[in-house]
C-alpha cells in the first residue's frame, strides 16, 4: 500500500542574511504519514535549518513546503496546531516545577482543564517523573530534563513531531525510555522527523532516512536500503561515513 505524504518539500533553499553561501541548497523530498524520518548529517549540514523552516521559526529563501495539505507561509497558525517540536536545547523554565512547565506549555497548545491534567499525569507516569513532578526543573538531572522537554512537545498529541537530537547527553536508561515512547507515539499515528548523531539509534529507530551534507540531500531510503546500496557498508554509520567522508567538520 502506497503511503500518503504528510510533508512535501520542493526546491527549498535558505541563505541567511549576511551569508554568501546557502545553508540549504534546493532540497526536495517528501515524508510519508506515520514515518519515523531520520534527517542525518554532519555538523553544519543544514538539518536544524530545515527543521526550523518546517516549524516556521523562520521563512525559507525560496521553495515550497506543504504540511498536511497546508502551505507553509499561508497557514502558519493551523500548521503550528498540528506540530510538536522537541528542541535540541532544553526549553523549559528552570524555576517552575515539571508539572507547572507542562501545564503552561499544554495551555499554549489550547489544552485545558481535566483533559490537560490527565495528559500531564499520564505522561509523567509513562516517563517515570511522577515523584519528581513538583520539583523545580533546575534541580533535575540532564536525563530528567530531556524527558520533560519531550513531554512538553507531545501533550497535544501532534500529527507531526520534530525532534532535534532528543537523546543528546542522556544516559542509556533515559534514552531507551524516550525511544520506546516515541515508537509508541508513532504507532498511535504521529509522524516523527528526527535528527541525530547516534547512527545506531537512527538505524533501529527510523523507518526512513535522508543523509544531508553541505545543504543537499545525498541519499534517501530505509536504513536497510541505504546499507545494501552503499559499498563497503554493514551499518548506517559506515554508510554515513562513506557518503559524507571522514573529513572533520566545523
Amino acid at each position: 500500500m502506497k503511503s500518503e505524504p504528510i510533508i512535501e518539500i520542493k526546491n527549498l533553499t535558505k541563505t541567511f542574511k549576511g551569508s554568501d553561501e546557502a545553508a540549504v541548497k534546493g532540497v526536495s523530498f517528501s515524508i510519508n504519514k506515520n514515518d519515523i524520518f531520520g534527517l542525518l548529517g554532519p555538523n553544519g549540514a543544514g538539518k536544524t535549518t530545515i527543521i526550523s523552516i518546517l516549524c516556521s521559526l523562520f521563512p525559507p529563501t525560496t521553495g515550497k513546503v506543504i504540511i498536511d495539505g497546508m502551505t507553509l507561509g499561508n497557514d502558519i497558525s493551523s500548521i503550528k496546531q498540528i506540530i510538536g517540536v522537541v528542541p535540541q536545547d532544553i526549553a523549559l523554565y528552570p524555576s517552575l516545577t515539571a508539572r507547572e512547565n507542562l501545564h503552561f506549555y499544554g495551555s499554549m497548545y489550547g489544552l485545558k482543564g481535566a483533559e490537560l491534567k490527565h495528559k500531564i499525569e499520564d505522561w509523567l507516569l509513562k516517563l517515570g517523573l511522577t515523584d519528581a513532578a513538583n520539583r523545580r526543573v533546575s534541580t533535575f538531572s540532564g536525563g530528567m530534563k530531556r524527558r520533560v522537554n519531550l513531554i512538553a512537545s507531545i501533550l497535544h498529541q501532534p500529527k507531526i513531531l520534530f525532534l532535534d537530537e532528543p537523546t543528546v547527553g542522556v544516559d542509556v536508561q533515559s534514552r531507551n525510555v524516550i525511544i520506546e515512547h516515541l515508537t509508541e507515539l508513532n504507532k498511535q499515528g504521529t509522524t516523527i522527523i528526527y535528527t541525530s548523531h547516534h547512527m545506531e539509534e537512527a538505524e533501529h529507530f527510523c523507518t526512513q532516512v535522508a543523509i544531508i551534507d553541505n545543504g543537499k540531500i545525498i541519499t534517501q531510503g530505509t536504513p536497510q536500503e541505504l546499507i545494501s546500496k552503499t559499498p563497503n557498508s554493514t551499518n548506517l554509520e559506515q554508510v554515513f561515513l562513506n557518503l559524507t567522508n571522514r573529513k572533520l567538520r566545523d
Partner: protein
Amino acid sequence: MWYKLFASIKKETIILLRDKIGLSILFIMPMVLVLVMTLVQDSAFKSINERGIPIVIVDNDHDTLGISIKLGLHYSKLCVVSDSIDGKPATAELAKQAVSQGKFLVGIVIPKGATEAVRKNVGQLVSSAMPSDEDSLTKTNVHVTDSINIVLFIDPVTKKSFLTSITSNLHEFISIVKTKIMFQTFSEQIAELMPENTKAPKNAFAKTQIINYKEVYASNIIGELVPNAVQHNVPAWTIFAMFFIVIPLAGSIMKEKNEGSVFRLHTMPSSYLLLINGKIIVYVCVCMLQFLLMMSVGLVFLPMLGLPVLVLGNSLLGIFIVTLATSFAATGYGVMVGTIASTEQQAAIVGSLSILLLSALGGLWVPTYIMPELMRHISVLSPLNWALEGFYELFLRGSGVIGILDESIKLFIFFIITMTIASLINRVKRNI
C-alpha cells in the same frame, strides 16, 4: 485565547514570586530608596532651616550696624551666629582661619566705625537736602564719605544658594540701618525747623513699615499644604523605582530567550503579543503594587520618623489613572529594551543607564525650572517628566482628573509606541 493569557499570567507570576532577588529589587529596594532619599533631602533642608548655617561674626563696629547685623542674623533662623572661636573673641584673622578649617561656612567682619561712617554719610546727604541759610554753599560742598567694606570669608564648600541668602540678609540689615539713621537725621533736622510748640514726628521709621508679604501656595488642596521634602521626593522616587522595572522585565525577556522557552513558544500556536501581554499584565500589577508600597512609606513610615505626612490631594481616580499610565509606560519601555538587547548584561546596562538619563532629564533629581533653557526643552520629552508632572499636579497643585489627562495620554501613547517598536524589532530579528 483568554485561557492562554491566563496561563501566561500564572506562569509569569510564579516565576516572579520565586525570584527572591528580583522581588527585593522590585519592592524592598524602591521603598528603601524613597525612605533614604526623602530623609537625606529633608535633613539637607533642615540643616538650613532648623540648625542653620554656622557663621562667625567679628563685630569691630560695636555700634548700631554691627548690633543690627548680629541680632538680625541671630533671629533669622537661617544662621547660627557665633562671635567667638574656640572660646576666644573672634578676630578677622581667627575668623578666616576657622572658615578655612571648615568650622564655619561663613565669617563676617564688620569694620570699626562702620555705623559712624553711615551716619556721617547720611548726615551730609540730609543736610544738603534741607533748606538752610548756607543752602547754596552746603549743597555745592557735599562730599560722601568713602565706602566701608564688610568682609565675608567663605568656605569653598558653601553652596551658592546659601551664600546668596546670607548676602541678601546682610543687604537688608544694612539698608534698614541706613534708612533708620536717615529718618532719625531728617526728624532732627525737621524738628529744628518747626515752631517750638509743634511736635516733631516720632517713630517715623516704624510708621513706614506698611508693606508686608504673605506666602500663599497656588494649590487647590484644602488646608495648609506646605511643599516639603516628602511631597516632592515621594512621587519623584516612586516614578524612578517604577521605571526601574525595566531591568527585571527586560532580564526576564532575555532569560526566556536564553533558556530556549521563546524558541519553543514560537513553534506553538500562540502569538508573540499574547505571550508578551502576560508579562505586561503582571508587571503593570507589580508597578501598581510598588506605587502602593511607596505611598505607604509617605503616609506611614516617614511620619513615624518625624517627617510630614504625604498629602495625596483631592483625586484618587486621578492618582489611579496617572499610576496606571506610568506603569504601562514603564512596562512598555522594559519590553522594548528586552526585545532590542541581545544579552542579559546588555539589557541591564541599557535599561539602567537610560532610566538614569531619562530621570535626570525628567527633573527627578534637579527641578526642570533651574535647568538651562535647552535642557528644559529636552526634559519635556522624558516620560518620567510626564509622570512627575502628573503626580505634582495631583499632590502639590491639588488638581483633578482633567489636570492629569495630558500627561496620562502621553504616557499611554509612549506605551503604544514602545510596544510597536518591540513588535517590529522582534519581526526583523526572526526574519534572519
